């Protein structure tokens, strides 16, 4: 038989081309550009000092503030890959989760200084609520075949209403150190606690994807639903799972941002974060039409976005111009 004209396996492409061809090249490039521009404009951007057993500096701020976004971007990546659409309700689901969590902790009071119920109960309730939201989205998308953006539009509008319903329209404060701690910096830990949440989420999700065939299933369903069905994949189930995961992750993000402000602010928690999450996914080099995905890309995308925001704060760009980039 004729030899195909293939590159012999041993021969390597030029280094720069291999780097440029890597799927993480563009997202990393963006991040580097943002950071470099800092180096020039605000030299002390990279200064890191240690205070009270805590690292402090702009870079730490970026890593810290990006935590929720990273968590959301992970979920958004899965949803995008499997269903070829985005979940725009994540911000609202964060609010629901925060509301449920704080309401359980406060036992219905507007402001408390001790837990009314154990924290673990509150967190479980919050995650359950957000998983339910995810399941609802998943049901509409996977079972009813409604386009993702429209299906999640429902919770996007309803979510904050539900959150307000839970908190009775008030901002519920939980002024308990054991709660604040999850959203702040603990002496001796070097990094603020939210950072660990983000790392844990990324690790766990990538582990699940590595250690099960879920990743392959998601890509397959996202690329060609018909063909996937014929090889025995249950596309409905897989999409549904991704929405539930996305919901739970939004719940975790909601918990983190509510712990930061030790309160449930139904109107503002996670506000407009869905757009940032989608942008992170796109910046990460993922196709918004579904199919192959890269979690690492999305995570880098998320950090890039936060780096940009913090940069603008650091440069003291007037708030009016903030949105112009």
């Amino acid at each position, binding site marked *: *038989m004729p030899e195909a004209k293939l*590159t012999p396996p041993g021969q390597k492409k030029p280094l720069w081309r291999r780097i440029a061809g890597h799927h993480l090249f563009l997202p990393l490039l963006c991040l580097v550009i943002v950071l470099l521009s800092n180096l020039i404009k605000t030299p002390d951007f990279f200064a890191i000092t240690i205070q009270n057993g805590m690292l402090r500096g702009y870079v730490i701020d970026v890593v810290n503030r990006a935590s929720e976004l990273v968590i959301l971007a992970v979920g958004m990546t899965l949803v995008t890959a499997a269903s070829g659409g985005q979940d725009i309700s994540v911000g609202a689901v964060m609010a629901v989760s925060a509301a449920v969590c704080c309401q359980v902790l406060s036992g219905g009071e507007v402001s408390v200084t001790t837990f009314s119920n154990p924290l673990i109960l509150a967190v479980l309730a919050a995650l359950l609520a957000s998983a339910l939201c995810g399941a609802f989205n998943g049901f509409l998308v996977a079972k009813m075949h409604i386009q993702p953006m429209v299906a999640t539009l429902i919770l996007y509008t309803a979510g904050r209403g539900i959150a307000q319903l839970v908190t009775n329209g008030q901002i519920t404060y939980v002024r308990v150190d054991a709660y604040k701690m999850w959203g702040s910096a603990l002496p001796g830990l070097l990094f603020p606690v939210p950072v660990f949440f983000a790392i844990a989420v990324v690790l766990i999700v990538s582990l699940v994807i590595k250690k099960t065939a879920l990743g*392959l299933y998601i890509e397959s369903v996202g*690329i060609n639903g018909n*063909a996937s069905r*014929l*090889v025995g994949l249950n596309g409905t189930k897989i999409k549904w799972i991704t929405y539930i995961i996305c919901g739970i992750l939004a719940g975790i993000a909601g918990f983190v941002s509510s712990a930061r402000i030790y309160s449930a602010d139904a109107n503002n928690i996670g506000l407009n974060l869905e757009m940032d999450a989608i942008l992170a996914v796109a910046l990460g080099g993922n196709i918004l039409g579904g199919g192959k995905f890269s979690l690492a890309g999305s995570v880098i995308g998320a950090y890039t976005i936060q780096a940009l925001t913090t940069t603008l704060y650091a440069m003291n760009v007037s708030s009016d111009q903030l949105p112009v980039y």
Partner: protein
Amino acid sequence: MENKIVLSMQGVCKAFPGVRALQDVSFTLRHGEIHALMGENGAGKSTLIKVLTGVYEMDEGEILLDGHPVSIHSPQQAQTLGISTVYQEITLCPNLTVAENLFIGREPRRAGFIDWQTMNRKSDELLEKLDIHIQPTQQLDTCSIALQQMIAIARAVDMQCQVLILDEPTSSLDDDEVAKLFDLMRRLKEQGVGIIFVTHFLEQVYEVSDRITVLRGGELVGEYNTSELPRLQLVAKMMGKDFDDLAEIKSTRTGNPDTGRPPVVEAKGVGHRGTVKPYDLEVHKGEVIGLTGLLGSGRSELVRTLYGADKADTGTLKIGGKQIKVNTPLDAMKHGLAYLPEDRKNDGIIADLSVRENIILALQAKRGMFKPMSRREMEEFADKYIDMLQIKTASRETPIKSLSGGNQQKVIIARWLLTNPDFLILDEPTRGIDIGTKTEIQKLVLRLADQGMSVAFISSEIEEMLRTCSRMVVMRDGRKVGELSGDDLTQERIMKTIAGGEKAHA
């Protein structure tokens, strides 16, 4: 005497990452000739055509049209230069009507606005002329692939062109339609159109073509007059080695299958409203059963109900003697069924995934989400089948979409062989596959049957089925109209049963 040269390509080179698809290939086409472009899967035929029509930019080389150098950067430009093309993969828009697909870009207009009436009327005439019986107002995705292929041809020939390119137009057509197409091609040839014709069917090449250009591994082997190149030599040139004749296959066919034990598959009154009328079917261990019938007679639909791709709404299905419920393909797979769908692009390949992932996907799905294969295991499986089926790919990590059509098909076959099924359903497995591999696949089917696998085989080529099948089911208009086996398995009997009139015995 020689006609004038209409098109000539000189020293064309084209490389994809990891693959040199074309290397210094030259090609000439004359007015009023049918020029067959031949080669194995992945030889570079489609790439040559896509370079010519501006889908790909070539790396080197030049194109002369009527003696003038031209540079073509888009299919649109090719069209304006009088090159009209039917690509190997159907390139029509599923969301538009048949008429629009025929006329888009050159719609008849009145006062600047599209004149739908005229367009539909003209489409009707055009379809009528080609004996395609559909409504021009029907949406394209309601048409079968065969019909879509005919529509694509109709679109191409209706355009005023001096060069017509047909890349495997006959792969999903039945004999009648092929004949119609050939009539058409001859007519165009008389009008002086130069036609490039790609196919894997040798008979067709000898039936219509005047000259043959052979490619192998991206390189030009040579250009020959059809009348001066015997078949065996052509095959030898394509493969680069001598070819052991197909006749050998026949002898390997197994005798009577084991009817003592319960059949592997037993369907009673299985049907699906609107596509297949309720039918009975038994398949025994080690048997190769063929399904035949005219285009659109419902062969695909029948096997789809067995596999659960379309959920049957009547009847019962027993597998291995046990009655089972098949609601989804996964149920069928769990009971040892495997199904190679006919529509490779839409139902077969997962375009962006690698060859490796495409191969292991079905087995992985069968094992379940929580029992993932290790990377090593996957690579071993992939390498084994790439080797076994001689899949031509830059590496096992190449996305399947950048393989040539025939090689994609092989990957899908590999996918199902890997699940080691008891009953393998092959719907047009040899479509778009070169003659060497085709023989390999037929041999493979027989070997598998010898090892005890049962196979259902659907093909548009009756000879191919005769060579491999021990029993044939004949379909007409979504109904099973007969079964033939043993001495009844002759082309003549089959044709008669298809045509009806004679009652075939079960």
